[in-house]
């Protein structure tokens, strides 16, 4: 099967064929036609993202283990965790919503972090096995459905709604969720899939990522 050198890309939003120039750190290559960001100069992306993903994993576990908030009214107290909300929705018959909250607030972020970390660790010694490519694709899907930042805002809104009815004390879990929002944003910003793909073993049986001949033109560089 014929393929092109990887410094040539087709813009995902408008299909224009373009060559990505060598980028300085912090530089971004944008599509000349539609302005879509095509690549960014992120030197040391793998090391930095590995550290951020490891930190995110720890904070994610904390956020799920610790109570989000405690509430007292009528001489009684209630408390909840992230999964406590899921359990209560299930108990009250809102099964579909309960499953969705579990998916968007726990499963998707957890798998996003875990898969990203696994991909990065495996990519340290190229050529990485083919499952690394599969995992990278799944990490992207889970990232799309991970809604920790939306949940954080949802918890804050519910705090305001509740504050008029009862006394609210924020718990350690709430601070962990706040930290997780920042860590996930930093992890996504520092991650560069273009750094990982060249290290993955090819599906078509070529054992090693092949080296490309210098291509003359965009469409002419095929081999």
């Amino acid at each position: 099967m014929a393929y092109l050198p990887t410094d040539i890309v087709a813009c995902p939003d408008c299909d224009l064929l373009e060559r990505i120039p060598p980028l300085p750190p912090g530089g971004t290559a944008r599509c000349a036609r539609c302005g879509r960001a095509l690549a960014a100069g992120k030197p040391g992306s793998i090391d930095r993202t590995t550290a951020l993903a490891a930190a995110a994993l720890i904070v994610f576990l904390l956020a799920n283990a610790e109570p989000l908030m405690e509430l007292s009214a009528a001489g009684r107290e209630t408390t909840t965790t992230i999964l406590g909300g899921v359990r209560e929705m299930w108990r009250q018959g809102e099964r579909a919503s309960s499953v969705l909250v579990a998916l968007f607030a726990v499963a998707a972020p957890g798998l996003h972090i875990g898969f990203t970390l696994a991909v990065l660790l495996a990519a340290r010694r190229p050529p990485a096995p083919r499952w690394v490519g599969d995992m990278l694709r799944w990490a992207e899907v889970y990232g799309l459905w991970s809604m920790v930042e939306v949940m954080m805002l949802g918890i804050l809104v519910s705090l305001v709604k509740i504050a008029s009815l009862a006394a609210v004390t924020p718990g350690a879990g709430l601070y962990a969720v706040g930290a997780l929002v920042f860590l996930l944003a930093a992890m996504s910003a520092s991650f560069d899939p273009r750094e990982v793909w060249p290290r993955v073993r090819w599906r078509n049986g070529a054992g090693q990522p092949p080296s490309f001949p210098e291509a003359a033109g965009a469409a002419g560089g095929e081999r």
Partner: protein
Amino acid sequence: MTGALPTGARAGIASCAACGLLSRPAGPGNAGSCPRCGEPLAFRRRDAVQRTWALVIAAAICYLPANTLPVMTTITLKSSEPSTIIGGVVDLYEAGSWVLASIVLIASVVIPLGKLGALAYLLATVRHRSGRRNRERTRLYRLLKTVGRWSMLDVFVATYVVALIRFQPFLSVTPGPGVPFFAAVVILTIFAADAFDPRLIWDSGGETRGEDD
């Protein structure tokens, strides 16, 4: 030069949707798969326009019950008071937090409606092979892909209010039937934005690089 810019489709080169590698599909009937990652190759997302329309219509149908059915019911010894999404916004506003009230209003009403309207507009202009304001339309598409997730806000609000206000029989809150419809709207619009292919905007012309020819 005829003025036609080199695109993947014109050059007969498919861009892998998963890893971005450019390769020549095996044949016209069977495009084959990406030699690097194994993803099936295609020049454009399959049945993008029909699938996006179907999802937009399904989301629009769910939008009505999502906004008219209660999302929460507050139960006290004396009363049981259901409230809709809009009711929740009004409550927040009356409680003095107009910032949060407008955030919930934007996330729950403005974003889903705007997203449905914007997708319908993109689908209609692609159908008429507009070729005008391509850059703006592409930007609109990128915007609606990033903001869509925030509509899930009210589902999380309902979940954590219900999880905490459990002082039966004096005061408790139960989730209402509006919640699953609301979640359905959000999920369907996310799938709809994913099903659309922004490259269709450019396929009908409007060749300019940035400014004008």
